[in-house]
């Protein structure tokens, strides 16, 4: 369970996030949607502590994350996994070394145990026979899979994904989306995903928060999104004229 209360973040005096409050539940894929530049990445990075918010509270269970001491933060971080927009795989390391990286630091497992876990994670994301490849030898979709495998290497309670299907074709996108959803349900992870892809919203969005110019202006499920009367949201969801006409038809 993650609870965000009245979060503010600014860069050089410019407000990027304004008064954001929202809850995320385990076993659910919660989506943050919004146009490019609306503040999704900043929100996600503030939640995980890569940015320090000016004001507000971020609760992980009963721990107030942004007030924890460095050491306690570090403990909590071991329960987080994150998939970055560009995958952010370590390009000095092979696929399996990437996945074993957090294990090297935080477990006392033998090499066999680490390899076993790495292979388990790779199988889980349906990526086999790529163990010895370097990230630049992989396609975008494969990189995302490795990114997910690395994020779940230490059985996280919290999974964060920044635009998991940016740069992927629609088919691969859906495959990655479903993979994240399955893993979320299978391990009861609290998953937060940034996206501007409506396919993802309809496919995996258990709960959706819509960000407009740094404010959360709408929150609901993917069933409700089509019937909302929030103007900014409708402009975002129903971009084309055809979509607008369809919406008019639906609401008749």
């Amino acid at each position, binding site marked *: 369970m993650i609870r965000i209360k009245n979060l503010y973040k600014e860069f050089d005096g410019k407000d990027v996030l304004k008064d954001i409050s929202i809850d995320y539940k385990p076993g659910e894929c919660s989506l943050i949607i919004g146009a490019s530049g609306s503040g999704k990445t900043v929100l996600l990075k503030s939640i995980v502590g890569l940015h320090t918010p000016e004001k507000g509270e971020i609760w992980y269970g009963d721990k107030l994350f942004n007030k924890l001491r460095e050491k306690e933060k570090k*403990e909590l*971080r071991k329960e987080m996994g994150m998939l970055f927009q*560009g995958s*952010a795989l*370590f390009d000095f390391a092979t696929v399996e070394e990437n996945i074993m*990286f957090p294990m090297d*630091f935080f477990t006392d497992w033998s090499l066999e145990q680490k390899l076993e876990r790495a292979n388990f994670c790779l199988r889980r994301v349906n990526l086999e026979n790529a163990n010895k490849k370097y990230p630049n030898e992989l396609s975008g979709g494969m990189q995302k899979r490795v990114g997910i495998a690395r994020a779940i290497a230490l059985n996280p309670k919290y999974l964060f994904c920044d635009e998991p299907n940016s740069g992927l074709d629609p088919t691969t996108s859906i495959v990655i989306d479903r993979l994240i959803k399955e893993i979320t349900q299978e391990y009861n992870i609290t998953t937060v995903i940034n996206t501007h892809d409506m396919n993802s919203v309809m496919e995996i969005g258990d709960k959706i928060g819509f960000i407009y110019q740094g404010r959360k202006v709408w929150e609901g499920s993917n069933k409700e999104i089509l019937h909302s009367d929030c103007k900014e949201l409708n402009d975002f969801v129903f971009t084309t004229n055809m979509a607008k006409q369809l919406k008019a038809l639906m609401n008749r």
Partner: protein
Amino acid sequence: MKKALEIMGEYSLLMVKVFQKPEKWRIFFRQSVIEAQKLMIDSIPLIFVISIFIGAVVVIQTVNNMDSPLIPKMYVGFMTREILVLEFCSTMIALILAGKIGSNIASEIGSMRITEQIDAMEIMGVNSANYLILPKIASSVVLSPFLMLFSFVVGLLGGALIIAITGLITMAQYVDGLQFSFKIHYISYSMTKMSVFAFIITSLASYYGYYAKGGSLGVGRSSTKAIVISSVLILVFDLALTKLML
């Protein structure tokens, strides 16, 4: 001016993050060996070539400028040795390394920053500054004095080589000069200087890489800045250490 203070503050904070006890010593030592290879061992060919040529040139210049028959020829060896040990093998080599390993470090760390690889480490709970930067500083500070020694020896050999080829003076005169009034203190002074320079180069390049922003252009900018600033600081510290130690 405010900018300079800001940079110094940011730099100090980063160094605090760097100088922490590594999560696992085994990982630290493994990375240090890798960095030693990449930063120090791989610089040996470049230093070899430069030192051998400079040694030869210094000998020729000294001979040309000491044409008075009153000055014994062995002073060529003496002068060459002093020039190499006092300035060339530490300060000049450091300036060259500032270009070579400074840009290497700044662009490596900078590209990890802009591709979010550093964020990926942080989110795992890994102290990225400690993991990435400490092994670079440690291996360079420890090994660079030996690069200075190496450059010194090769420089003297370069001098010997040009004498053997051209017969400007006799080898005996050259060797006599090399041994004349030898101060071991100069060697330790020069090795210490080299360590300090290595710290300046690696820590500044790491700093500029670590805070790189603005895409690949930004990485280029930060590596240029790293080289310029560390070169200037090397000269400033050269002056300060010379005042202090000699």
